[in-house]
C-alpha cells in the first residue's frame, strides 16, 4: 500500500517546522519517525496534504537529568529511551515501558513525542507518562507552554495540541525510592496491549495509568486515592476501572477488559522492581 500523494517539506529547525505547519493549517502534519502516521496514511485513515519532516531536528533528541525530573526531547527514539542510563536509574518504569513498544525495528524509528502527540489510548507511553505525572512542553507560533499529561488527552487520537503546535519536550518526575510495575497483556508478541498498566508506588503515594481502557489513556485516580487512604493493593485494584470506559473489540469485551485491569493493576502495584 502506498499513501495518497502529499507534499513533503523538511524542516531545518523547530521554528521553521511550526511556521510551515501554520502556513498549511489542518492539511499539514508533522512527520517524526512516522511509525504511527505512515500506517494510517497507507490505510487512508489519514490523508494530510503536506508532511513537515521534523526527524532531522537532532537538537530535540536528548535525555537530561534536571534535578527533580528528567527532560526528554520529543524526537528521542524509543530505542534511546529504553537504553538511557539516566532513565534506567531515575525513571525505570519509563525505560521499561519503552522496551515494550512494537519491535526493535519500530523502536529504532518511533519517537516518544510522536507516540504522545498521536494520543493513541492503546499505546504504552501515553499511559505511562500519565501515570508518572509528566508535563509536556509544546511550542507554537506564539511561544511555548506546558501541558500536564492529565490535561493533554481529550479524545480518541485527540490532544490539547493546537494544529500548529509541536510537542518539544516531555518532563518526567523522578521516581526515586519507588517500586514500579508494567503489565502488558496481549496475545502475540509486538501487538498492542489488550489492556496495559503502568504503575509506581512510594509508601501510600502511587500513580497508575491504563492502556487501551477507553478512548484516551486513563489515570486511575480512584486506585491512588484508595492507596493514599490506606487500602490494601487487592482492595484498591478492584477500583481500577472507575475512571475507564473500555470498549469491546475483536480481542476483548468491555467486561473482560475491566477484569484484566483489576488483575494487572494488582500485579503492577505488587511488583517489587525498584
Amino acid at each position, binding site marked *: 500500500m502506498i*499513501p495518497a500523494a502529499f507534499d*513533503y517539506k523538511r524542516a531545518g529547525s523547530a521554528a521553521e517546522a511550526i511556521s510551515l505547519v501554520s502556513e498549511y493549517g489542518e492539511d499539514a502534519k508533522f512527520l517524526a519517525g*512516522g511509525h504511527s502516521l*505512515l500506517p494510517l496514511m497507507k490505510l487512508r485513515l489519514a490523508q494530510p496534504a503536506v508532511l513537515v519532516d521534523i526527524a532531522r531536528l537532532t537538537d530535540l533528541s536528548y535525555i537530561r537529568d534536571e534535578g527533580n525530573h528528567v527532560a526528554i526531547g520529543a524526537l528521542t527514539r524509543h530505542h534511546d529511551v529504553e537504553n538511557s542510563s539516566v532513565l534506567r536509574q531515575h525513571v525505570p518504569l519509563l525505560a521499561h515501558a519503552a522496551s515494550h513498544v512494537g*519491535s*526493535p*525495528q519500530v523502536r*529504532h524509528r518511533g519517537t516518544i513525542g510522536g507516540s504522545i502527540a498521536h494520543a493513541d489510548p492503546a499505546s504504552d507511553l501515553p499511559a505511562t507518562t500519565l501515570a508518572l505525572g509528566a508535563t509536556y512542553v509544546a511550542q507554537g507560533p506564539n511561544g511555548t507552554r506546558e501541558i500536564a499529561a492529565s490535561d493533554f488527552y481529550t479524545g480518541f487520537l485527540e490532544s490539547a495540541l493546537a494544529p500548529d503546535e509541536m510537542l518539544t519536550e516531555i518532563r518526567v518526575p523522578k521516581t526515586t525510592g519507588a517500586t514500579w510495575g508494567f503489565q502488558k497483556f496481549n496475545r502475540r508478541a509486538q501487538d498492542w496491549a489488550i489492556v496495559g498498566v503502568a504503575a509506581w508506588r512510594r509508601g501510600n503515594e502511587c500513580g497508575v495509568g491504563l492502556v487501551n481502557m477507553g478512548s484516551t489513556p486513563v489515570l486511575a485516580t480512584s486506585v491512588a486515592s484508595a492507596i493514599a487512604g490506606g487500602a490494601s493493593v487487592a482492595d484498591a485494584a478492584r477500583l481500577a476501572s472507575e475512571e475507564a470506559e473500555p470498549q469491546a473489540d475483536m480481542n476483548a469485551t468491555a467486561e473482560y477488559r475491566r477484569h484484566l485491569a483489576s488483575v494487572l493493576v494488582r500485579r503492577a502495584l505488587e511488583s517489587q522492581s525498584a
Partner: protein
Amino acid sequence: MKITVTVNGKTREGDVEARTLLVQWVRESLGLTGTNIGCDTSSCGACTVHVDGESVKSCTMLAVQADGCSVTTIEGLANGDTLHPMQQAFMDNHGLQCGYCTPGMVMAAISLLQENPSPTEEDVRIGLEGNLCRCTGYHNIVKSVLAAAGK
C-alpha cells in the same frame, strides 16, 4: 524529489515521489528484490533493512526519509561468494524453509547481535519479535542466530 542514498556501499541517486516507500524504491527502482514485502503494515519484518546500521521496517519508511542515509539490504552482506556469517549460520542450521522471511530475519538478527553480541536464547526470541516466520516454528532460526553469536 531528488534523493541521494548510500545503498550497500554505493552512492545511488533517485528522483522519487514523496509517497514512495523505501522498500518500493529499493525493489523497483534499484532492482534489489531480496528485500521482501510481506504484511505491508510493519508487523512481519520481511522488509527489514538497515538504515545507518540499525534495523528498520522499510515498508514504514519513506524513501525521502532515507535521503543522505546509508542503507544496507540483504544483497549488501555477502563478500563475493563468501556469505556473511549470519547468512552462513542460517544455511548451516536450516534456519529457513520457504525463505520468504529470511532476508528480514537475517537483517534483524545482525542488528540484534550488534546491540547484544552474546544473547541468551530468550534474548534472541525477544529480539526477533518484529519478524514473523510461518514455516519454521522459529526453532532453527534461533539456533542460527545463537550459532552466529558464538563465532
